[in-house]
């Protein structure tokens, strides 16, 4: 077994016979920032609810901490932050700390400082802005110093400054505390700035899991050659110092870089007896790549 902190095995959730999460196999390693991306209604929040223990799976299993300390080792911010409007920020934090049996005034003040609410701790949370509420929600999730943090669309409704602050906080938690973080969003561009592993989900199914490097490679512009003789083409490319290429399918080669040398590469291969069916530059933006994934549907394990 690999060193996964979290694994789900054919995780399924049905409401009224309809599967909103359908046989999802997720894998998150310790220390990763896992970005779960999908359109609205894809099942992201439901997956997170099941992992956090708010909803019971209809089928499948979740392998996460099994020891008795698991309540303290997980923090979650799912949908709206759960804060009582008539109480101030400090009291909301204190309530959760008391419930967990970890109340310490200084720890709470440190957390409020970490999320930038130390000056607003005595203000009633019903008077907080949306960004402040989101930050307090993250603060609540951090009580007890969890090892695993679940953040469900934490940047929803935030202004650009708020988005930057949340992003920096997530990066800080990962770097300084070695926290494993699972974060969801429907904005791949923003998620790509923080996450190092991505899970793309649509209609309740996990379409793809891929690393940051793989995602970049998928989106990077490259030369695509379609030919019936990839072996000969590969050896010719190597002889001519084109090292950065990959045979992706039986009849397809991708060459990274050298985008201005398409005519030269074409001529070189043809003159050495390689039949070229197609040669062109491909690549896409993150959004286009994401849209192509959810548009295609199906399961593709990378």
């Amino acid at each position, binding site marked *: 077994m690999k060193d996964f902190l979290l694994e789900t095995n054919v995780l399924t959730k049905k409401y009224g016979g309809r599967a909103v999460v359908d046989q999802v196999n997720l894998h998150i390693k310790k220390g990763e920032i896992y970005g779960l991306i999908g359109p609205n209604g894809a099942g992201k929040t439901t997956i997170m609810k099941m992992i956090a*223990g708010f909803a019971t799976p209809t089928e499948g299993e979740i392998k996460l901490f099994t020891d008795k300390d698991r309540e303290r080792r*997980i*923090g979650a911010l799912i949908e*709206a932050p759960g804060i009582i409007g008539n109480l101030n920020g400090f*009291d*909301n934090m204190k309530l959760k700390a*008391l419930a967990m049996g970890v109340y310490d005034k200084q720890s709470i003040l440190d957390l409020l400082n970490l999320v930038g609410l130390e000056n607003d701790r005595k203000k009633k949370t019903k008077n907080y802005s949306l960004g402040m509420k989101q930050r307090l929600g993250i603060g*609540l999730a951090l009580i007890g110093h969890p090892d695993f943090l679940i953040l469900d669309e934490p940047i929803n409704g935030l202004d650009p400054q708020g988005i930057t602050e949340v992003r920096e906080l997530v990066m800080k938690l990962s770097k300084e505390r070695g926290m494993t973080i699972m974060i969801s969003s429907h904005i791949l561009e923003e998620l790509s700035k923080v996450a190092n592993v991505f899970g793309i989900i649509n209609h309740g199914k996990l379409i793809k899991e891929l690393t940051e490097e793989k995602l970049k490679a998928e989106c990077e512009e490259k030369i695509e050659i379609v030919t019936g003789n990839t072996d000969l083409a590969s050896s010719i490319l190597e002889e001519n110092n084109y090292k950065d290429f990959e045979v992706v399918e039986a009849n397809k080669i991708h060459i990274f870089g050298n985008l201005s040398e398409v005519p030269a590469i074409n001529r070189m291969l043809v003159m050495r007896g390689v039949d070229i069916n197609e040669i062109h530059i491909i690549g896409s933006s993150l959004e286009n790549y994401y849209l192509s994934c959810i548009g295609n549907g199906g399961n593709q394990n990378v």
Partner: protein
Amino acid sequence: MFNLIRMNLYRFFREKGYIAFIITLLCATLISAIAIEITAESGIEIVESVDENGQTVYNMGVADENSDITLSAAAEANTSMAEIFVEILGSGVIVMISGIFAIIYSDTERRYGFVKNLTVRKRERVAVFAAKAVPVFVFTCYTMVAVLGGVYLGSCFTYAIPFGNVNRFFAYFVVQLFVATAFGVFSLALYELIRKEVVAVIIVIFTSLGLVSKIVQLLEMGLVKVGICSEAFIEKYEISQHFLANRSAVINLSDVSAGKPCALIIAAIGIVIYLAAGMILYRKKDVV
């Protein structure tokens, strides 16, 4: 569990529960003042009777073949704070308030989403439900204290009346507290079942006014009519008398049991059954 109880008590006092105390105190003061004033002016409502122990007791508005009507000249000397307290609580108001508080308390936790903070990967999330019984008990207790305070203030503003029999009052207070708390726990379980605040509050209001026992009485009449059981059987077991709201209404200073089994046992059974039911529902249903 202890941590959750601590959290619930902290939340209870921080959410300004004293406002409910003040409102209850004011309302009880007003009711008591009016009741004492009417009693003093007319006297007709004050009734002196002898209980089964041979002791003289004074009741407001209660008369039977063993009673004498006492007139206004001695009226203000013929009632007590304890009696007025019993009259107020016996109207069903304390079980109603306890039930409504329980529902609002649970709904606030869910509506604000705060329940998510309490149940993250919780091994036994039913403890979150069970711990709510404690603030229900505390709220019921201090509401009853507020009523007592209101009766005292009502007396201060009108006529000075005696407190009454302290031992009987204390026994009544304890039994009524547990009966009302049991009803509050029933309301917690009811809310977990339907998870709709308004509907639950309406059910609680009508249940506290005796609707369920009326329905049961109707069913009993039906059963006798179709011949499934006899009137003697119904009279012997008196199912409707075992309901919490009904028992709360009939217990009084002279008789804190008001039937068999005693009210305290009814309350204890109610707390156990409704706690268990609520915990089962809490475990089976998704938190959010």
